[in-house]
């Protein structure tokens, strides 16, 4: 069968990324041919700066070796420039006469450096900074000559200046603007940067217009003359004054261009067979030069080339980072601000520290950081999420703070970390290992880093650190989207929020329906998406959607907790942490009878039997004759209590009974992640209510409710929700909040993260202020729980899932 032919003109990052996305979606759909003008396969253009400075080699920045093209059946023409597109015959031609017919054409011709139209621009020793050839020319020149002048004080210009200085040259930077990086920094931050670069030995000529380049008499450049007549010497002149979309070929072939190849939201040009991505395009009047938007375009183009037809390119806020070792600088979004915005600034010029946060309507819209960029990723996420930061306004400047509380020696900044410092305490992954993987494998997302290094793949507490490392390595190309913007997994483009919405609006009640409706790419999903969808189904349509045990993690499938040796742990429920002699006697007997190697008291005031063989589970449950403690599930775990007014001389309320009532009210509740409660009988808070998903503290006049606490990976203090008087109100308000969380949180999102995402005000409006809604939520929770039975009893008495516990024999 003849496959349709896809020809790509341009072999750079945006184009090849489009092919990679396309191959992910439709591996064998097209016959693909690629033309690249450069004599190299696809490399990471962003990393040319470290190559120039000698910190990396060309080999290290290759993204796709020639073998990659071959393995994917792509015909690659390197060093061939396409000079003609015949749109009538649908064929492209190169300067050496090579032809390739196409059914779909993808233009990814990138951009050209802008050359100042001044006398002497064609002299020897005048170069641009765009590709490998330019870098090699600069490195060569640095070995023969002494004085370099860089025209342009933007990102590229400063990186070139830094690189040439590292190669031993005397470098001056000429800049037309009032301050350096005037598209990335405000004046104050730019002054700090200039000072720091001057300390390193770079000279600056600001607000200077270049009038001519001077000839040394042999056709080589000797220096510059400015418009004011001043002259400076230079044996190498680097023009880094900006880029222009390279739309020449498109224009010549009659495609509509206007400072770039004009494309619509689906990356199509005016000829529907022709797509364009990357720096060569003009989308809604804007051309992009940063890599993150180019990757977004690649996704959209690939989606349409694969005939999926659902993506639209929507420009998102971008961030930039200067890749000069030892200088920390980060900006994102609208960092300049205007009349409609307000700014919070922190300025410590002596300490070399400057931070500016720009807010509009209580939302963070821009950030400019100099000297300490540890929180760059966090600010960037807040900008992209676009939610209100009103509540944290007073502490916003302090940053996310203590990213990674435990397991990495309290480190919250990666810049100063040595390569052998442990970043991921769960899997023992050091900073150097992560940096190496990013560079060698060409990684751009935290998920890729997780896969390749295992860092941040267990408890996730070091995700912030890993993000920082990623941003330090690849700058603005780092894909650090919030969970609300990320696809659920590699099986789909859809986000968690998107999947939930469709399940609710389309009344979908089975995994099959969801996967069919949303055109899942894999036949039956994966271990990441199936448990999530299963949860969304049963929480949205209780009683209607059928729970799918095969889409549950083993612990929830067999109602026990798997251990490293394949045995299980069993934790029976002890309501409110209260037990009695008869239960303890049965537990002791079970431990003896089944030779259970360890009996341990848990942090949740229960007893754990560890090392139970799987086939013994039903017998253990039967002999215990106690309900499941759900200590294995994304569900209600336990309600911890203190002694309370029954015995304690300080107790103001009967916290133990309240704990028992709550636990009985909520048992069997599945949730996005585990849920823990505590009830204390007085403000001494012996049950540690301040670090629970729902924490309740009895006071003389009633009960205070706190939500979103967490005592695990990162200690988070619960926030005050409301104070109520009666037991019934405690049950209703706790239940209503948990139901809201059940209906709205993403799978595996703890209450603390949900709270951070939607804000306390939102939750208060839903469950404290709106009494009708509180009641309705609580009723929906009661309805959902009405279908739940004790899973251990079901297995012991009704023989549910017997096949799980009966091994086969020959």
């Amino acid at each position, binding site marked *: 069968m003849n496959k349709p032919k896809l020809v790509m003109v341009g072999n750079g990052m945006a184009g090849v990324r489009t092919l990679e996305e396309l191959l992910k979606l439709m591996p064998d759909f097209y016959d693909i041919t690629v033309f690249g003008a450069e004599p190299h396969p696809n490399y990471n253009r962003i990393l040319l700066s470290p190559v120039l400075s000698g910190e990396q080699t060309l080999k290290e920045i290759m993204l796709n070796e020639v073998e990659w093209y071959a393995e994917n059946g792509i015909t690659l023409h390197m060093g061939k420039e396409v000079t003609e597109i015949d749109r009538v015959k649908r064929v492209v031609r190169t300067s050496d006469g090579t032809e390739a017919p196409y059914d779909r054409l993808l233009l990814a011709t990138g951009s050209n450096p802008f050359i100042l139209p001044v006398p002497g621009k064609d002299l020897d020793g005048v170069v641009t900074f765009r590709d490998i050839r330019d870098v090699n020319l600069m490195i060569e020149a640095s070995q023969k000559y002494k004085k370099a002048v860089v025209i342009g004080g933007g990102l590229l210009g400063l990186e070139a200046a830094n690189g040439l200085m590292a190669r031993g040259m005397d470098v001056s930077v000429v800049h037309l603007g009032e301050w350096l990086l005037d598209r990335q920094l405000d004046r104050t931050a730019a002054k700090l940067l200039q000072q720091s670069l001057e300390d390193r030995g770079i000279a600056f000529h600001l607000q200077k217009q270049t009038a001519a380049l001077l000839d040394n008499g042999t056709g080589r450049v000797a220096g510059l003359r400015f418009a004011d007549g001043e002259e400076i010497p230079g044996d190498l002149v680097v023009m880094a004054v900006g880029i222009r979309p390279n739309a020449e070929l498109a224009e010549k072939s009659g495609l509509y261009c206007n400072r770039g190849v004009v494309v619509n939201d689906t990356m199509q040009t005016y000829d529907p067979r022709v797509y364009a991505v990357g720096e060569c395009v003009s989308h809604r009047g804007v051309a992009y030069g940063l890599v993150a938007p180019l990757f977004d375009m690649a996704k959209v183009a690939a989606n349409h080339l694969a005939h999926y037809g659902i993506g639209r390119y929507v420009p998102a806020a971008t961030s930039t980072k200067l890749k000069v070792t030892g200088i920390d600088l980060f900006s994102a979004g609208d960092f300049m601000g205007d009349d409609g915005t307000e700014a919070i600034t922190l300025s410590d010029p002596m300490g070399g520290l400057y931070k500016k946060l720009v807010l509009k309507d209580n939302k963070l819209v821009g950030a400019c950081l100099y000297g300490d960029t540890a929180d760059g990723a966090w600010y960037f996420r807040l900008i992209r999420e676009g939610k209100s930061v009103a509540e944290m306004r007073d502490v916003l400047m302090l940053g996310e703070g203590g990213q990674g509380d435990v397991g990495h020696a309290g480190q919250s900044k990666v810049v100063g970390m040595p390569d052998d410092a442990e970043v991921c305490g769960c899997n023992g992954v050091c900073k150097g290992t992560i940096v190496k993987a990013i560079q060698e494998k060409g990684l751009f997302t935290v998920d890729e880093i997780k896969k390749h290094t295992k860092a941040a793949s267990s408890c996730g507490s070091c995700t912030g650190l890993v993000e920082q490392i990623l941003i330090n390595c690849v700058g603005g190309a780092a894909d650090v989207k919030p969970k609300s913007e990320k696809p659920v997994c590699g099986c789909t483009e859809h986000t968690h929020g998107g999947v939930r919405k469709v399940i609710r609006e389309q009344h979908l009640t089975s995994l099959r329906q969801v996967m069919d409706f949303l055109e899942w790419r894999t036949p*039956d999903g994966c*271990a990441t998406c199936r448990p999530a969808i299963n949860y969304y189904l049963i929480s949205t349509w209780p009683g209607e959607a059928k729970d799918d045990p*095969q889409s*549950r*993690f083993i612990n929830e499938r067999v109602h026990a907790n798997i251990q*490293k040796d394949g045995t299980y742990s069993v934790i029976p429920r002890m309501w409110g942490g209260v037990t009695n002699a008869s239960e303890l006697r049965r537990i002791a007997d079970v431990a003896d009878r089944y030779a259970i190697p360890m009996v341990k008291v848990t942090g949740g005031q229960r007893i754990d039997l560890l090392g139970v063989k799987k086939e013994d589970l039903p017998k253990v449950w039967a002999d215990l004759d106690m309900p499941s403690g759900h200590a294995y599930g994304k569900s209600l775990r336990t309600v911890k209590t203190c002694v309370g007014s029954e015995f304690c001389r300080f107790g103001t309320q009967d916290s133990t009974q309240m704990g028992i009532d709550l636990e009985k009210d909520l048992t069997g509740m599945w949730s996005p992640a585990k849920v823990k409660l505590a009830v204390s009988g007085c403000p001494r808070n012996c049950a540690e209510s301040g670090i629970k998903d729902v924490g309740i503290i009895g006071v003389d006049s009633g009960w205070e409710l706190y939500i979103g606490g967490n005592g695990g990976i990162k200690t988070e203090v619960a926030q005050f929700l409301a104070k109520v008087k009666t037991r019934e109100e405690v049950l209703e308000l706790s239940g209503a909040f948990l139901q809201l969380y059940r209906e709205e949180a993403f799978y595996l999102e703890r209450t603390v993260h949900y709270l951070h995402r939607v804000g306390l005000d939102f939750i208060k409006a839903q469950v404290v202020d709106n009494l009708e809604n509180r009641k309705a939520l609580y009723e929906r929770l009661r309805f959902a729980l009405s279908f739940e039975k004790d899973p251990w009893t079901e297995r012991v008495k009704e023989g549910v899932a017997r*096949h799980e516990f009966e*091994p*086969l024999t*020959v």
Partner: protein
Amino acid sequence: MNWKTVCTINDIPKQGARVLKREGQDDIAIFRAEDDYVFALVDRCPHKGGPLSQGIISGHTVACPLHNWVVDLKTGEACAPDVGCTGHIPVRVEDGQVSLDLK
């Protein structure tokens, strides 16, 4: 060749697995994919020995319950970027009877 019938295909749930216990030898995990293909692997993840039979099965792969390594059901090879392999056992399904070649 030493073909032994161990169960019927209906003894294994779709996207599920059963464990075959053998005296003095590693357990064998017998998987049934959603498309009713049946596979058998040594029930030991190449990573840290986790029981693959307890994992979530999707397509022709299983995700180990301990650390989420994904293993190809046909070959026993860990999927990239992880590297490792567990043994696979030939399977035959005839008239709904599942047999393994237990050498």
